[in-house]
């Protein structure tokens, strides 16, 4: 029944959202991988992008879309998958403390031998597991789809890109967690984290065509997520380190803030 401790109870709470986000991301990836040869036969994707000129750069640093790797990069990994995983991680994390507070269940929960910091850490561990699980589903369906259509999709590169995707989700999830732990307001936390994601995405995308933005580009987490183009080149350890550090710092911040606060009745 998964009712052994806060960690397993959180897995229980997250099971359906995790199922749906995994299925959604996995189905899209599999679908594109299976149908890619058909697409590329009908349309010459590269020539379309050329016609779009600089505007095409808004979709990220593109490269060659006539391969499945380039195609997935632009169609999924630059925007849709990050949006999904960030919404998932931020949505779940923002409810960890704020959800218990607004439902009023925090009083009973904390009257049992569970410390406030353990509450946050065990719940966070559950969303890490959920994100990794979703990434594994995407990997399996992606590799399966590519095999079915006999397209080239290096398994290790896909895993690396998904690793960066998970880190991106967790970084934004930790931001949402910190805001919700500080305010007790779940809606505000989701809103702020998703809003921040959109702004950071735009900053990173616009920076490739607007010169003036170059200076602020390092402030965008998308810069680290996409910078090395992990689907083609693999992981850059510094980029991964930055995302992981953001996640850890905001997690610690959440614990510190939450330990000090008066909890809502």
């Amino acid at each position: 029944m998964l009712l052994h401790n806060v960690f397993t109870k959180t897995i229980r709470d997250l099971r359906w959202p995790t199922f749906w986000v995994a299925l959604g991301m996995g189905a899209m990836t599999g679908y594109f991988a299976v149908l890619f040869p058909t697409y590329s036969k009908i349309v010459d994707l590269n020539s379309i992008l050329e016609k779009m000129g600089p505007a095409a750069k808004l979709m990220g640093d593109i490269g060659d879309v006539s391969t499945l790797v380039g195609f997935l990069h632009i169609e999924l990994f630059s925007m849709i998958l990050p949006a999904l995983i960030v919404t998932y991680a931020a949505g779940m994390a923002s409810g960890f403390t704020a959800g218990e507070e607004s439902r009023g269940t925090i009083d009973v929960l904390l009257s049992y031998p569970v410390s406030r910091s353990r509450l946050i850490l065990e719940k966070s561990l559950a969303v890490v597991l959920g994100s990794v699980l979703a990434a594994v589903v995407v990997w399996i369906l992606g590799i399966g789809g590519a095999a079915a259509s006999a397209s080239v999709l290096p398994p290790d590169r896909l895993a690396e890109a998904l690793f960066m995707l998970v880190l991106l989700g967790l970084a934004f999830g930790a931001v949402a967690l910190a805001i919700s732990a500080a305010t007790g307001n779940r809606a505000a936390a989701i809103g702020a984290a998703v809003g921040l994601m959109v702004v950071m995405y735009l900053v990173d995308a616009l920076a490739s065509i607007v010169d003036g933005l170059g200076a602020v580009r390092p402030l965008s987490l998308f810069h680290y997520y996409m910078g090395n183009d992990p689907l083609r080149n693999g992981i850059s350890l510094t980029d991964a380190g930055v995302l992981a550090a953001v996640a850890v710092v905001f997690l610690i911040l959440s614990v510190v803030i939450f330990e000090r606060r008066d909890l809502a009745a």
Partner: protein
Amino acid sequence: MTAAIETHKLTKWYSHRSRGILDVDLVVETGQIFGFLGPNGAGKSTMIRLLLDLIRPTSGSAQVLGLDVHRDRLAIDRRVSYVPGELSLYSELTGRQLLTYLGNLQGGVDAVYRDKLIERLELDPDKRIKSLSRGNKQKVGLVAAFMIRPELLILDEPTAGLDPFIQLEFEHLCEEARTEGRTVFISSHQLPEVEHLCDRVGIIREGRLLAVESIAALKERALRRLEIDFGEPVGVEAFANLPGVRDLTVTDSVLRCTVMGSLDALVKAAARYEVRNLRSIDTSLEEIFMAYYGADDGAAEEVSHAAA
């Protein structure tokens, strides 16, 4: 022996305008059933949530079972249970699932005893909590609190929504706990609800602890309601503003009032007239209680002086 609860000048301001409790010095000895009484907004829940470390004091300190409520939190949690005033439980779980979860967090509970509690409180444990009525939800909270056999039970208005039969069963549970040397701390705004159950009560009003007394002493220091029949009509002015005299009415030759403390002033004033009869009517505990917290500030002050 260490007290079950001990606070020193415990004060909580939610903001600089919103008063929670003020300078509360309270000692609750172990092995008692203690009633914590006060009207709405008096600060009962504030006091309790401070003891649970859910909110932090502005100043002062609090110990539970001799342990610091913040520093020794987990040690206290293992030995104390709590039913909040506004009880919210995971509504998607059944009662049984919730009790399993909380039992696991506690590190295991006696399942036989838990099932006996379920039976005694007539709880249907296989219904989802969201489908339970208020009273039935409250039963889940009570089973959760009693099943760990805590040394101290902190119950914030625990009987709200319980029918008389279950309320009686709840009282038996409290009495059994006391027999085993455990302590029960119950908040309520109704004295009659707890008067026969509690050994001692504390009365809190507008954040201040006005008095802590045994029920017996509380009854002893009854307010006296007096009726005096005079031989002639008397004016109300002659009795107005006498110390300790309240609720004064004079109709023709009959005076009715409530007296707190000494009767001296009233009797001397009455002696100026022909007194045909003087009756003292026993006051109910409820009236004593109302005098503590229903009264305006001046009267409350008087009461607390009388209590000192």
